[in-house]
């Protein structure tokens, strides 16, 4: 029980009459690399919003590191150690690359140590030369790296990645897969991804969501062998659009 880092029990989120998340029981162990897949409307985005405090659940609880975080505010959850990378990079376009990372470093490590961490992470994500450029001037791929860098800087216990390879080239996606494994050495990860090659490549444990609840869990091979999953998801649409 001690190595359970995240647990949701009976998690429900209703929007009007619609149950986007329906009695979801989800358990994540420390150090896991979990891929969450599912067709559109399966509740993946809502789950991330619930986990980060952007939405409050209609019912159910979320425990993170043994702490009840169900009703905490987004900044409190972030402080508790959950970091998120959005599908469309959510970065400060008018600020420089270094300032973006500094903002993350100051929150997690305080003003004194922030500068050194920024320099280290700039090197890790390969943006040393662009450090003074406004993020809005960077390519889409580089903006993804800035946001990944912000997550790395904060050094959270749990990292949520929402489609990290969206809009990336094959080479960039491979580099991202390496980086995901690298982050996984330090943190527990949940990755929402539509790219099945990527999911197989990072070789995580897979949870299939359907209509707001867990449909199946297992390795990628087990999931592919699951007839129900194939029917609702893989069989009909090997690569669903995001």
């Amino acid at each position, binding site marked *: 029980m001690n190595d359970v880092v995240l647990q949701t029990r009976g998690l429900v989120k209703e929007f009007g009459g619609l149950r986007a998340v329906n009695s979801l029981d989800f358990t994540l162990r420390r150090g896991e690399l979990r891929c969450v897949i599912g067709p559109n409307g399966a509740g993946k985005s809502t789950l991330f919003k619930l986990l980060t405090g952007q939405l409050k659940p209609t019912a159910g609880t979320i425990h993170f590191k043994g702490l009840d975080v169900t009703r905490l505010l987004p*900044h409190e959850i*972030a402080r508790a150690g959950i970091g998120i990378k959005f599908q469309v990079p*959510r*970065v400060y376009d*008018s*600020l*420089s690359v270094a300032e973006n990372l*500094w*903002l993350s470093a100051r929150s997690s490590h305080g003003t004194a140590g922030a500068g050194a961490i920024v320099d280290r992470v700039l090197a890790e994500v390969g943006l040393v030369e662009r450090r*003074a450029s406004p993020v809005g001037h960077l390519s889409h791929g580089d903006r993804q790296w800035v946001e990944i860098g912000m997550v790395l800087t904060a050094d959270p216990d749990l990292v949520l990645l929402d489609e990290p390879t969206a809009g990336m080239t094959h080479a960039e996606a491979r580099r991202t897969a390496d980086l995901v494994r690298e982050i996984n050495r330090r943190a527990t990860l949940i990755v929402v991804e539509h790219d099945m090659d990527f999911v197989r490549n990072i070789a995580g444990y897979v949870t299939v969501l359907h209509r707001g609840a867990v449909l199946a869990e297992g390795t990628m091979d087990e999931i592919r062998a699951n007839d129900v999953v194939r029917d609702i998801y893989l069989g009909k649409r090997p690569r669903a659009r995001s």
Partner: protein
Amino acid sequence: MTAWALWAVAVVVVAALPAVLSLFQIVQLTVFMIYSLLALSLDLIWGFGGILSFGQAAFFGVGGYFYGIVGINSGSTTLALTAGVAGAAGLAALLGYFTFYGRVGAMYFAVITLTVTLILHQVMGTTADPRYAVGQARLGGYNGMTNIPSLALEAPGRAPLTLDPVQLFYVVGGLLLLVLALTRALVRSSFGRVLGAIREDELRTELLGYDPRWRKLVTFAISGGIAGLAGGLFAGWGNFMNPQVFSMFQSALVVIWVMVGGRGTLYGAVVGTLVVQSLTNYLGTASVTYTTVALGAVLVVIVLLFPRGLVPAIGGAVRRVSGRRPPAPEFAR
């Protein structure tokens, strides 16, 4: 480097002006500098916090009335000015607490601040009856509060020295430069950089672990305090306050000063105020029949030609002439 040179020039100019200007012009310039402080208070919360407040006139008025009430009753203008700053900052903090912690949207915030201002206008207008008095200070309704003491230099064990117009000019000029320097330091500080991040993307900043609510509250309270300082100085300058300071016109004027000068530049607040007020004075004396219409036309032209304001436009022109590239946006601006 250039910034320090500009500051040195500003200090020299302020120091030298009384030698070249008439007394009337000095008195005029003093009130322009008081207005500049008011504009500066808006630029802090709007330009850097990203929160449009129509309530700066309210804090200005509250600062003025507090100065009047405390000044008339205690005789100490230092105490009165302190009360003006504290009263306005307190009102801003109270308003900010309910709006920021209640997660009121930006549009509603602007409307609420305007409403509070107009309510103060109405309420202060109904205080004409002599029984509306705080101690010796009669509020006076639309006739205003009179006999407000002029700002005086006070030292323990000595009789207070009431400032003459030139001395008041120096005190106000010194305070303006001081507040300008302090707000500049604030927006470039660690706190100011996070404030810039909140302005750019509040949710992102929250998800990095920052609580935006108290940061907005503190900024708004400081902004209110600066507006209160301006109000107190204004009451001490004119020895008079009336509810017109809470009017719709006054509220909009503060926004116009900042817009013309350039939002989010601090210097722009000062430049915008000086330009707009000088223009108003000129049009008023140059026997233009429709002063307000002419002023409005000029403002529309300025905003069309320089949508980001005069200071950014001047800065851009200087850079083009000198061929220097714009500085890297390391700081949130």
